[in-house]
């Protein structure tokens, strides 16, 4: 069964006709082709699909798209302005916080939401917040360092 919804994604308005059982992640990736938001587990554990829904960091795999008609969504593709990396992205690049990179968009989106609430989080607060973003490459060391470098 399908239903019509409207989503504002990265500032663009999309009128969509979506399957009622499809997640926001399905719609973002498959209907809108915004494949920077990654699917790592589909159970809300890995955080690779983190995006901003009305300003809050959410796991898109856990949200049914039809429930969010009229919402405003920001994905990783909406972070870069005029081709310039956001300072957080720049820090992750320069500090070695990116290896395979599959978790990176989720890390960026979750961290930006954290910094919006708390511009100067402690290392412990950063680690606690990132516990919802699994990474298998870096041991998180350089990710945390990168976030510390832009927030202190």
């Amino acid at each position, binding site marked *: 069964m399908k239903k019509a919804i409207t989503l504002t994604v990265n500032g663009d308005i999309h009128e969509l006709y979506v399957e009622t059982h499809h997640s926001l992640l399905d719609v973002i990736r498959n209907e809108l082709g915004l494949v920077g938001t*990654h699917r790592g587990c589909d*159970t809300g*554990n890995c955080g690779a699909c983190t995006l901003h829904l009305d300003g809050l960091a959410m796991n898109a795999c856990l949200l049914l798209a039809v429930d969010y008609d009229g919402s405003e969504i920001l994905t990783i593709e909406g972070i870069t302005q005029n081709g310039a990396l956001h300072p957080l*992205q720049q820090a*992750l690049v320069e500090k070695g916080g990116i290896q*395979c990179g599959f978790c*990176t968009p989720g890390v960026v989106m979750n961290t930006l939401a954290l910094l919006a609430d708390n511009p100067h989080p402690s290392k412990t607060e950063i680690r606690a917040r990132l516990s919802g*973003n699994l990474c*298998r490459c870096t*041991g998180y060391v350089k990710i945390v360092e990168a976030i510390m470098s832009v927030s202190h």
Partner: protein
Amino acid sequence: MSSLIGQRIPKLDAPDKATGRATYGHDVRLPGLLHGKILYSAHPHARIVRVDTSRAERLPGVKCVLTAADNAPTRFGYGKDQTPFKSMARSLRDEIAGVVAVDADTAYEALALIQVEYEPLPAIFSIEEALTPDAPLVHSEHGSNLFQTYHYSHGELLRGEAESDVILEASYRLPYVTHACMETSVVVAQFEHGGRLTLWSTTQIPFLLQRDLSEALGIPGSQIRIIQTSIGGAFGRGLDIYPYEPIAALMAIKAGKPVRLAFTRREEFNAGPARQPAEVSLRAGVRRDGRLTFRDVAAVLDIGAYVSWGSVTPLVMMETTASLYKIPHVRFKADCVYTNNLVTGAMRGYGNPQSTFFVETMMDQLAEAVGMDPVEFRLLNANEPNTTTPQGLVITSCGMKECLQAVAAAADRAAKRQGDEAIPEPVTHYQTPIFNAQSSNSNTLKRGIGFATTLNVGGGARIYRSDGCGASVKVDDFGHVTLVTGSTEIGQGSETVLAQIVAEALGVCPEDISVINTDTDVKPWDVGVHASRTTFIAGNAAHLAALDARAQIFETAAEMLGVSPDQLIARNGRIELATPHSPPATIPSLPLSKVVRQRHFREGGTVVIGEGWYDPPTKLVDKATYKGNISAAYGFGAQMAEVEVDTETGQVRVLRLACANDVGRAINPMAVEGQIEGGAQMGLGYALTEELIVENGRVLNPDFHHYRLFTAADMPEIETIIVETDDPGGPFGAKGVGEMGGTPTAAAVANAIYDAIGIRMTELPMTPERVLAAILKKEQVHDRPTL
């Protein structure tokens, strides 16, 4: 411009990954792309009597359904015991049928419409069952469930026993663990006009996969092109061909359209490869003066229903057993056993995390038995540079002692710490806490430190007849350099390290270099990314190619400047006369671009393309004795773990992990640290939290909620120490580091637990349940009279 070697150059592909622009396998979009799904067996061992696909085929949106009838008549894989679809199921992973449909939803719906009639057969789920004389056979044509046995020895065991003042023995149980790459397995197959097959793949072995697929599909390897996407983690997962790859190809051929076959996370846990669980017994001896006398290991590995390259991991277990520390008498035996359990494969460290766990916990016991400090004991027996082990490993550079001393110094710093200010506070307010069960009673919190070392191949590993890699370096008329390398980028940063090597040789910046490394139609041959070999092997190949290109450039520049080529150097994008004492403005020089243009534009001109091929001076191990120098260099490392054990809950919290690694020379220290820190995360999981719980061939915890990776909140403080020994064979002195980060971790943590509570843990992972059971057992033995 200062040297690029040793610089923390950011990963070249990181900006694309930071912005979501990198294209992973799941992101590949092709016109007309269809979706494939696999139906797995409902029984761990069963004959497939009948597969009725008619209802599935009639479902609107289904393009075709495939079964074993669609297989080529050949078998594939390391043990040649696999077919794409099965007519006999030997594990719950076995592929019975496949559906191709317009979308994933339709494909799933169609799977449910396929009717399979099974004739269930008795199945075996343990090594003991598998080896009983009348056990059902997993592969009847093999005649036995024992796939292979490895026997190794050097010295004389009886003499070693006679020379020992103390002999100890212990048994170990090692779990199923898995790679848990953040990106699940995925392949996109397209069959082109003219019969050529293109696969977008996450493989680590593109050229071997061409050959493997050629066998599996019965089409020539020349008709198969592998394109590697950005790869979201590998860690050994991509070292073999797996059935889903030829299945995707069969689907694309039958459907006549491109097909994507992507695993769900649950499928990844169930149908992806796991590390072989093992049961190990170990006896070892030592003299009163602290010298090791002998080591005797017998291991049995459950390789599951099919053989992969992972079942040669005993070769690496053997190396650790025979050559970690100087040890005169060694015997090693390993049996690889078929069962109807999970399919196993190669995983980072390839036998080394397992063997380092038992060898290094036993080292601690031996040190204690002779009353020696664990670090002093290890230093006394440590491997040394410019020696050959009895196994035939030619150790050139060796920083094992320096690594041990570095982590011992870290332990001293930990001991001298004032209060607890440097200990990270436990993080408790997060999603899936591992360490939130801390007792409030500090009397139950016991601290300890433990050490372990590691030896790992660092200059390739001659597993195949060639351990080579090819490279070419093109310089264009803008001075831009293109490195085409056979090697594969899996996130480790090889493309950046190789660019640094080439840039250094040509006197340009890394930004002036493009690295092409993803297409078998373009890149020269390479064995694959495994065995910590890429920096050493692909690095030497890239360096040779760059030197070849530079010689061509120097030849032309020498003519233009009227000097001899050997008077020239490449620096700052220019070719200049080597006159170190002249003021820069007066030195005759030419821009690189101008020299290349001169070659292009003259009569009989030519391009600048340098070639490199490097195959290290090593040998395949002797087939009977397993002796020989398998690698051109060996990496060493040591770790110190500081833990806190809660004796009320059995909870082990790692407070600090110091990791020292001898990497020869760190071409990019940031990338080296990244390998060690990431390896430590995997090693900590192996030590404490990660285990696939398997019952009757079924994974009971196929999700991240129950298969526990260390999160950012769980990680201890990690101190990463790079030891440089300037390896004589490595590019600019470098050797490999990719696998060493997690190899000694479980042993270091186990030794720290012993230091804290006096209990030797011999089963991994050391979960609260297991630690608590061991504590209660000890209390029963020591404190309470038997009722």
